[in-house]
Structures are given as C-alpha cells and as structure tokens.
C-alpha cells in the first residue's frame, strides 16, 4: 500500500510540469499557433525564477520573474509567427536554442557557478503545504491515506496546475473568448469576417501559453528542485507536446494524458515494484519511451483519431 502511495505521489509531482506545459501548448495550438518552444520557455522560466528567488530570497518574486521571461519568449514567437508570418516550427526551434544558450550564459555572468544558480533555502523555495483535515482524515480507509499522503503535502503550484484544468475547459468552451480562440485556430477568415481581430486573439493565446510555461518552469526549479541546473527541463516540453496530441487538444484529456505519462515516469523509477507486481523484468527504458510510442499509436490512427486545429501552423493573411 505504501508503495502505491509513493508511486502516486511521484506521479503527481512528475505530471505537474507536463500538465502545465501541455495546457500552455493547448491554448497556443487551439488558436492555430504551433509551439515547439515549450521546452525553451520552461527552461528560461526555470532559470529566472531560481535566479530571482536566490537574489531576493522570495520565491513569489522568482515566480513572477519566471513568468516574465517566458512571456518575453512568447512575444518573440508571436512576433515571428503572427506579425511577420514566419514558420512557426522554425521560430519554436530557435526559441529552444536561444533558451538553452542564454540561461547558461546569464547564470554564469550573474553567479559564476558554472551555469547554475545558488541553492535556494527557506523562502526561496515553494514548501509543501498540508491541506486541511489531512491528519484527521488519514485514518479513513483508502481515501484517507490517498488524501493525506498523495494529494496533501504537495507544493502550491501542483494545486494551481490542477485548478488550471477546469479553468482552461471553462475559458475555452464556456466563454465567448474561448469560442473565438478556437475559431481562430479552425477558420481565421471567418473570425476576421465577423470583425474580430485574428492577430489580437492569437497574441492573447500565445501570452496565456507563456504564463503557463512560466509556472511550469518555476515549479521545476523552485518547487521540485532548489535551484537551476543547465538543461534541467530534460525534454519535458516535448513530452508535453506528445501529451497534447494524445489528449487530442482537450483540457480534461490533457490531465489524463499527463497523469498517465507521469505515472509511466514514476513507475520507471521503481524497477523493483515492476518485478514484484508483474513477475518479470521490464526494461525501464521501455517505460521511458512509452509516451512517444503511445503518441505514435494515436497519430497513426489505431486508437481514435487526433485531428489538430485546421488552421494550425498557417500564418493568417488577410484577403484584400
């Protein structure tokens, strides 16, 4: 039982950055802007939040700095792909390269610790919070331990990430803004005919993407870790993209996909459990590639169909 709980605990921790990045990509791609720069934005946010948290000793200032840095990259992506109608994929790749280089450069210039930030202590980190009644409910069978050990005792950004799921669903599917945002990803010409600014909507979507990536990056360096290490995102932005396809560009499915991918990552950490439960040895590498394999299966159309927003990847050119 404790094994299952620690497994679920790790699942939640590992899913959170994926979920935030996945929702970030969801907003951007629903508005017709492909974004493979999620990785780069997370990396810059991870660096800036750790750097500012280290300098000010306040993790909230760090979080704001991380979001700010991510928003700047979003603005660059928006400028390149919306205003100047450049290729969205190339812009995204450029952002990843830029982030990979500039974080190490700035970290070295500021802290002289070889491209990392000083270790964060005290208020420079997000602490685990104990939810109300966690101790009181711990004795209740099944639900009690899950509530007190898995759901309670995470950092606040985990709950923020989970709260973003219904919020994203509400914004995208229950508000006028969401309807227009989705329309701009399907048929921007129609939106333009209705007198709504395509450029404005797309920039709004890209900005939301920037904020969410900022939170994801801050969670990595100030929630999960106590400082920034170069390339610490380690491909999580790409797994989030895979999760986005797996979730077929829908918020609730994004939650399930990220939890599944997080669970696979957490399970790969415990080869002993795999052997005990399944009674044969599974290579952990196999679990590590499962997100990609599952995504390919979905893309190939074996299980359902993943249809991206129709105007995705195409810059909008107004008819004259």
């Amino acid at each position, binding site marked *: 039982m404790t094994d299952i709980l620690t497994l679920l605990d790790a699942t939640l*921790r590992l899913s959170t950055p994926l979920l935030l990045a996945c929702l970030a990509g969801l907003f951007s791609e629903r508005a017709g802007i492909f974004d493979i720069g999620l990785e780069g934005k997370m990396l810059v946010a991870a660096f800036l939040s750790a750097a500012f948290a280290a300098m000010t000793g306040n993790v909230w200032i760090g979080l704001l700095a991380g979001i700010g840095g991510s928003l700047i990259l979003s603005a660059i992506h928006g400028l390149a792909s919306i205003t100047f109608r450049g290729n969205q994929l190339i812009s995204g790749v450029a952002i990843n390269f830029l982030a990979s280089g500039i974080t190490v450069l700035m970290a070295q210039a500021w802290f002289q610790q*070889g491209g*990392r930030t000083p270790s964060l202590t005290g208020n420079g980190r997000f602490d685990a919070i104990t939810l109300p009644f966690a101790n009181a409910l711990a004795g209740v069978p099944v639900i009690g331990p899950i509530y007190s050990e898995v759901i309670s005792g995470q950092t606040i950004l985990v709950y923020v990430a989970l709260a973003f799921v219904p919020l994203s669903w509400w914004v995208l599917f229950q508000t006028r803004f969401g309807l227009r945002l989705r329309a701009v990803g399907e048929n921007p010409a129609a939106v333009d005919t209705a007198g709504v600014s395509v450029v404005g909507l797309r920039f709004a979507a890209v900005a939301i993407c920037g904020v969410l990536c900022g939170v994801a990056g801050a969670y990595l360096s100030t929630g999960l*870790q106590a400082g920034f*290490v170069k390339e610490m995102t380690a491909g999580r932005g790409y797994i989030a993209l895979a999760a986005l396809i797996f979730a077929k560009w829908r918020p609730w499915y994004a939650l399930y996909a990220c939890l599944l991918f997080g669970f696979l990552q957490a399970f790969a950490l415990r080869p002993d459990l795999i052997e005990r439960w399944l009674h044969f040895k599974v290579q952990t590498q196999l679990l590590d590639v499962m997100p990609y394999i599952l995504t390919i299966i979905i893309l190939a159309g074996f299980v359902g169909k993943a249809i991206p927003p129709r105007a995705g990847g195409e810059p909008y050119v107004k008819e004259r």
Partner: protein
Amino acid sequence: MTLIQKFLGASAVLALSAGAALADPAIIFDLGGKFDKSFNEAAFNGAQRWATETGGTFAETELQSDAQREQALRRFAEAGNNPIVMAGFSFATALTDVAADYPDTKFEIIDMVVDAPNVTSVVFNEHEGSYLVGLMAGMASKSGTVGFVGGMDIPLIRKFGCGYAQGVMAANPNAKVIANMTGTTPAAWNDPVKGSELTLAQISQGADVVYAAAGGTGVGVLQTAADKGILSIGVDSNQNYMHPGQVLTSMMKRVDNAVYEAFKAGDALVPGINVMGVANGGVSVAMDDNNKALITPEMQAAVDAASAAIADGSLVVHDYTTDETCPALTF
C-alpha cells in the same frame, strides 16, 4: 610562380610560424561544461593551477555538441597547441582519426584508452575509489540499505556502481544496494528532477545513504538527500561543501592532477597508458571540515586499511569494465 602560389606560400609560412610561436597547451572540455562542479571543473582546476604556477597560458574550448569533437581537436592541432588534453571518454573516436594526422602533436585523453604513438591515455580506477566510499556507506547506514544513482547507463558508470556495491558488502555482507540509472541519453547528466525522484524512490525502499555518480543530475540527488535527512556521497570533485554535514564524503577523481601533470610535461609528455588509482593518489575519498562530524574513527581506520590493501595489491576490487559482470550487484 603565379601570384596565387605566392600568396599560398606566404600564408603557409605565416601559419607555420604562428604554430611555432603558439606551443601553448590546450584543453577541450566535454558536454557537461567547464563548471559542472564535477569532472570538467576538476580538469579546469588542474589547468588553472598550471597557469598560476608557471605563468603560462593555455587554450580551451567547451563543446556544445558531439559533432564538434573532431573539429575542435583539428583546430587546436592546426594552431600548434601542444599537448592537447581531452576531458572525457567520448573523444576516443575523433582522437583515433586526428592523432594519426598530427604525429608531432602530443594528445592526452582522460577516461579512455586510445592506442596511438602520440597519445597518452589516463584512466582512473574509479572502482577502487568507489569501493572506499561504499565501505563508508555500509558503515554509516543504519537501515542496511544504500542507494546508487548513476547518470547515463554506460560501462564506466557501472564500474562506479560495482565498486561501490563491493565496498558496501565488505562493510556489511547483509546490506542491500539499490542501483538506478537516470537514463540512456546524454540528457541523463543534467536531469536533477529525475535524480531527486530516484532518490525519493530509493528512500522509500529504505535507503539511508545515496551515492550519486551522475554529473548535474547529482545536484538533485544531494539536495533531496539533504532535504529528507539522509546521507549522500558526491563524485569526481569534492562536493562535501554543497550540504555541509549531510554529505558523507565524495569520491574524488584527481582529474586536476592528470591535467596539471600533462601541461607541466608539455612536449615531453610520455605516450602510453597512465593508470591513476588509490596507490598513486589518482582516486581518493574527501575528508574535510564539512564531513568531519560524520566520520567515525572506525570508518577512518577501515578506509585507511582498505586503501593500504588496495595499494599493495592484497585487496583487488573487481573492475566491471573488464568482463561486464559484477559480483556484488546486478544492473
């Protein structure tokens, strides 16, 4: 002689004289980066020490991708740098090609053997150093379960893990060693988040001492160990200072000594294989003020006894890379 030939000749003369003037040594750091607080940084410190002591200058570069290895080597060789030191086993393929083209240049590769008349190969007996820290881990562990977090799953890292497990078993034959690798790609050297999660997973299996041989990933391992109140063991450089009082010790590879000696020898660098082990101070355990309180007299005595036994050959630690098996641990 046409004009172009004259120009070519003149530039060739220029290039040659420039090369003669520039007999500075050069060092190429691996992908981990010069300031990785670990392997590459140790190499840099050795070069730096040579520069301060002799007042000389050296050329250096940090690689950004695997594709640059041969290019960087050739550039330094063309520029006349001598000797050229490479920090990292990954240079082997590139060096095999390049060394033959520049027979008058001396090369030194660390952590790998390249058989060429102008190449010095420095290898470390990491299994011996890991044995010593394993011995300490086995004695420091109260639960009888200790952990090992490796970086990229390669024979070299298994060599660390295997030596460590043998040390643990020597201290406590009933001990359990949990070994995990971070990944199979170079990203595994810089994934502190996964390092943390692996440490937590090992703690939940009862581990109370964790040895990280994982580059930047180790930062996460040491951090989580400190947060959760268990002991950790650093690698390559002395990492005791990172969490004073919570890092049991560090397995130091004296890469700095290797680089320093090579730079000092200059053109007179002797080709061949140079094995740095416990016997000649090539690997050792870090003892300083930060971990003084953690080291019991028995531990110190055991380490000293084992070091002496390894040095005089009466204790042989099995090297994983010789036959790809490990008597104390299955990967």
